[in-house]
């Protein structure tokens, strides 16, 4: 959920809204914000599934240290979405297990 109004921070300064893809679904987010917050702002909380038990994982530390938020972005696996800026046209995919490079990449 986006915090559009805030008693201390004021109105959210809207950056450039851009389109990106999440598991093939077209989505919108702000250019330069972490991929993770573009997803969470749209209500997506599950980012990947673990190797052995296929457990859902999402954001935990939000500062790029714990790697719970990694996803495949533009074909590259294990991208820390909480510290990687969103760019127009990015293809973000739910990662399963240890992650694999997209074929052809």
């Amino acid at each position, binding site marked *: 959920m986006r915090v559009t*109004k805030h*008693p201390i921070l004021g109105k959210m300064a809207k950056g450039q809204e851009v389109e990106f893809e999440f598991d093939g679904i077209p989505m919108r987010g702000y250019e330069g914000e972490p991929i993770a917050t573009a997803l969470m702002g749209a209500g997506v909380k599950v980012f990947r599934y673990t190797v052995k038990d296929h457990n859902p994982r999402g954001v935990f530390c939000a500062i790029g240290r714990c790697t719970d938020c990694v996803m495949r972005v533009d074909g590259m696996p294990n991208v820390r979405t909480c510290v990687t800026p969103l760019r127009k046209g990015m293809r973000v995919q739910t990662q399963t297990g240890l992650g694999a490079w997209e074929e052809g990449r």
Partner: protein
Amino acid sequence: MRESLSKTGVLTKEDLAQSPGVPSEERMEKGPVAYIECMEEIPCDPCQYVCPKGAITVGKQIIELPVLDEQKCDGCGICIPICPGLAIFVVDKGYSDREALVGVPYEMLPLPKAGMKVHGVDREGKAVCEARVVKLLNPKKFDRTALVYLAVPKELALDVRHFTVMEGEE
């Protein structure tokens, strides 16, 4: 920390009666005066230097609790938004026969408007009365801590320290 405060996070009336920052009944009936609910030793002293009348003393050892000189204090309210702990209020028991005016710091949305009816809320978050927003001050120099004056039943002047906007009022 006071035992009650450290267990519940709420100062009791008994605690406050011992606070050096709390004015006498007599003084509260004469007109608006600061009501300082700061009872824990934290190094902090903005209230001391912001008061234009010099009515609040913390001293050089900024760990000391603020002491209120109720004669010097004229209840202007400038100390309310300056307190980082949002622990200072203004009380005026002389407001009218049946009502007291209570000034509270407020940092939430939506900001109420003058004339609005609200629930008067006590230190435990319980709605204890209907209250009326008499005035709202939110100038730039308050740095986003608004000062909201509520008219409350006089007997609840020492209870109401927060409010919630009523359903339907916007």
